[in-house]
Structure formats: structure tokens, C-alpha cells
């Protein structure tokens, strides 16, 4: 249950950050409705942010494993 809570927390964080970045970029001046251009920008931006998040995760985990094989400083520090 703790793990499920952690996964939820993680998803919530992703959605929050994604909203923050994409709203910033796609809706410079909020009008009386979301224009179709803004909506497209938002969906695209969302896709890009999630791809970026995946890229970062992979790179980060690979690096941790690499450092922990080398032992030493890198082991417990990140």
C-alpha cells in the first residue's frame, strides 16, 4: 500500500510539472477558451515532457548502476 501511494505521488508530480511547463509555453495569454492551437500545443508538449522524463529516468538509472559498480564515492551519494 505504501508502494501504491508512492506510485500515485510520482504520477501526481509528473502531471504537476508537465502542466506547469506546458501551460507556461502553450498559453501565454489565457483567453475565454482554450484555442485549438493551444490545445494541440498542449498535447504535443505533454508527449514531449513524458518522453523527456523517460529519457532522464533511463539515463539516470544507468548512471547509478555504473557508479555503484565502480564503487567508491558514487555508491551511496546520489
Amino acid at each position, binding site marked *: 500500500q505504501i508502494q501504491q501511494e508512492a506510485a500515485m505521488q510520482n504520477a501526481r508530480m509528473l502531471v504537476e*510539472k508537465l502542466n506547469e511547463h506546458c501551460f507556461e*509555453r*502553450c498559453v501565454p495569454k489565457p483567453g475565454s477558451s482554450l484555442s485549438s492551437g493551444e490545445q494541440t500545443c498542449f498535447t504535443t508538449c505533454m508527449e514531449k515532457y513524458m518522453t*523527456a522524463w523517460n*529519457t532522464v529516468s533511463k539515463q*539516470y538509472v544507468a548512471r547509478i548502476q555504473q557508479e555503484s559498480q565502480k564503487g567508491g*564515492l558514487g555508491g551511496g551519494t*546520489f
Partner: protein
Amino acid sequence: QELQQFVVNESQKARIQSSIHTLTDTCFRKCIPAGAVKKGALDKYEEPCMRNCVDRFLDANLVVLRELERLRQ
């Protein structure tokens, strides 16, 4: 004792997750040009930029940790 190990593991995982969010935030800002987003995929400049950004951030992190280690002695 198993419970303790479980808590340690979970909080380590939580710290990793949180680092990934911070890194994505920082590197997205650095590697994806400001303004409207045209394509969902990362293009051939953005993709290596994101990967380099993660590695250079961790390199820099090591510089800091080594320096702190040195100062403590």
C-alpha cells in the same frame, strides 16, 4: 529489521524519483527551446542534450561531493 530495510529502500526510491523530477524539470528548460511546442518526439538536438544534461548534472554533483569531502578533512 526487515521493516527498517523496507523503509530505507522506499525512502531511497522516493529520493531517486524526486531527483528524476528535478532533473527533467531543469534539463527540459535547458534543452527544449522556449515557446510553443511543435513535435512530441525529441529531435536530434534535444535528445542528446537531455542525456548529456543528466550526465553533466551528476558529474557536477560529484565535483561538489568530492569538494565537501575534501573540506571536511
